[in-house]
């Protein structure tokens, strides 16, 4: 007992002196936004405009109700049996297949899987060489009210598309076949096989007159014309002309997508003056917008974007100038003239 009494002060001192000041190292899934983790990447946007993504299309079942898609999703639908389908796209590989899949797995209480263990069921996209990967993020013994996700991930050359059906496991099981049918309806309008079918080659030709100082750039297969503008201090701006077959969504949807890339809040309605203005050009009616980021997001400087949407029979043309704000704003006048110079050979 006396020994214990003598040991007690020492043990109390040791215990009460413990401080949690150790450096810890651990591995976790990255902090991702709930739906779409990748922040707008102005550099990658400039290298490959997001507009090319509009070439991906799908057929929506008649009884699905279109919902407000939110800042990051391209489209969202409510299903009659319950559950929600969202379609979104990210630049490049979207942070990686495993990262996105693991984020979803975390949302439904499944353990993350290593990159090498990620394998989905392949679904070949019709009229294309591209393959979508299908994932079922529910376990066999999940209760009907447990949450689950069915997903299709379509990696393309410059971007990745995510088709996500989320809801309770009971709802997912009921509408599994309908969602699979929806995924089978996905088409890539600009792909090697379907381009000729969905967009007659004549419709994709444009003749534009670039101002002095603009140099033709390599661009991508989606671009009908591509230019680069060199500014002072090594800054550059990028000009692209991209044709998309069909209607290609509302002006509000397109402008909000561009605004999200500049980290600007989306506009609530098409009546907002920040949306832009209608204008006339020799080739048809234009919708012209101009937006500047509120934060320095491009090499420590603000970024800006000038856009013009020109609707022609069977084809929508997207003209865009992006880059460091000062350089873009200095070239807006020339960009306007450039857009108006467009002629379309029959």
């Amino acid at each position: 007992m006396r020994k214990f009494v003598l040991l007690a002060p020492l043990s109390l001192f040791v215990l009460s002196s413990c401080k949690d000041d150790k450096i810890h190292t651990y591995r976790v899934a990255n902090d991702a936004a709930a739906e779409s983790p990748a922040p707008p990447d102005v550099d990658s946007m400039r290298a490959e405009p997001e507009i090319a993504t509009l070439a991906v299309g799908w057929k929506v079942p008649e009884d699905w109700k279109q919902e407000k898609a939110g800042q990051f999703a391209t489209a969202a639908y409510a299903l009659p049996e319950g559950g929600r389908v969202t379609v979104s796209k990210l630049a490049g590989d979207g942070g990686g297949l495993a990262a996105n899949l693991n984020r979803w797995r975390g949302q439904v209480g499944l353990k993350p899987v290593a990159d090498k263990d990620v394998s989905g069921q392949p679904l070949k996209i019709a009229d294309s060489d591209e393959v979508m990967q299908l994932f079922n993020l529910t376990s066999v013994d999940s209760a009907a009210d447990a949450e689950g996700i069915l997903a299709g991930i379509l990696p393309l050359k410059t971007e990745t598309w995510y088709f996500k059906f989320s809801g309770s496991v009971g709802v997912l099981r009921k509408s599994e076949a309908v969602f699979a049918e929806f995924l089978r309806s996905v088409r890539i309008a600009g792909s090697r096989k379907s381009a000729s079918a969905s967009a007659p080659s004549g419709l994709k030709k444009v003749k534009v007159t670039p101002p002095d100082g603009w140099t033709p750039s390599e661009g991508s297969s989606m671009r009908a014309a591509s230019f680069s503008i060199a500014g002072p201090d090594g800054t550059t701006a990028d000009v692209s002309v991209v044709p998309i077959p069909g209607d290609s969504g509302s002006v509000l949807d397109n402008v909000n997508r561009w605004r999200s890339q500049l980290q600007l809040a989306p506009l609530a309605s098409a009546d907002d003056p920040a949306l832009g203005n209608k204008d006339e050009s020799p080739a048809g009616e234009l919708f012209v917008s101009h937006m500047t980021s509120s934060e320095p997001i491009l090499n420590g400087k603000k970024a800006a974007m000038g856009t013009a949407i020109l609707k022609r029979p069977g084809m929508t043309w997207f003209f865009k100038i992006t880059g460091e704000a000062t350089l873009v704003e200095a070239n807006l006048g020339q960009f306007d003239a450039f857009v108006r110079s467009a002629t379309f050979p029959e």
Partner: protein
Amino acid sequence: MQGLKLLSSLRLTVALLGFAMVLIFIATISQVELGIHEVQAKFFRSWIAWWDIMPGEKKVPIPIPGGTLLGSLLVLNLLAAHGARFKFSWSKVGMVVIHSGILLLLLGELFTGLLGREAQMTLNEGQILNYSTFPREVELVVIRPDSDGLETVTAIPQARLKDGAEFPFGGFSVRIQSYFSNSEILAESEATEAFDKTHATEGSGKGYAVLRKPREATDDRKDLTSAFVEIIPDGGKSQGRWLLSNALKGEQSFPAAGWLWKMAIRQRRLYHEFSIKLVDFSHDRYLGTDVPKNFSSKIRILNPDTGENREDLIYMNHPLRYGGLTFYQAGFENNDSTTIFQVVRNPVWTIPYIACAMVGLGLLWVFSQHLIKAISRRNKPTPAP
């Protein structure tokens, strides 16, 4: 033996209890200036507490015995008393149980201080989190995004952050040039002479100036902790200076040793083995008034280890006990769309209950003994006069 005699004396017990009363009185007064967290650390979880008798411009600190010292001495006093005078007899069982209960209560407080943690989890409706944050502690994190989609995070606790501290990583070091436990950050153009002259040359903190400030004392104000850090490759020159702060959103990236790393100062995190999703937050009011009737958070527990994927409800006086943690409904914000849980980890939370039960049983035993003696004395026949 003289020492043991002194340590086991009843006078020491009385003196220690007297000091404890004084300590509680001073700490209660000081709470006005310092706030509850600072008071707990300064007066109750310290060996010696420096009491600022005239808080304000002129500091006159007086040393008084802190809670840790008083508690330790009380424990020793109790143990020594039993060590010096203990002899087992049934009549003393009650007293032994009472003292064991008191001892357990004192040790329970010690272990609560050592092992207990209080964090917060702030969730928007629809959001899922697998970590809580400590509102009054920050950490400097250096993050390496791995190729398998996960991240390797090295978290340096606030206690290690100080001017000149250097932390080696494979191929480079992170060096803290200046550290501010609390600060104000303003655009350089708006900064006055009082602001620190150091400036960031890289990252999103460029163009900002930092003013050193004393730590916030009150519960409703949070420290803005900041640091100017340099990235120094092994055997090379500094790659630049970054301003990190929990006032700046997001992480800042830097290339080093063949990776694109990220770093930030953020609220210290406590990761859990499970995730919590806020399904819905309800703020019920009495009909026709703004008087709150109930706050409740409908949550979903997602546990990959157990396969749990179920809903639960947390509301006032009805916390969720899960995974060794207790989630209390603590607050809400963002127009009733965000909930705040107080997340408490206290592995010894049952000790006070057990200790009180022991003291109660011991008292019952002692009183029963006295009662039996008194009854037997009364029933004893009185000798005839």
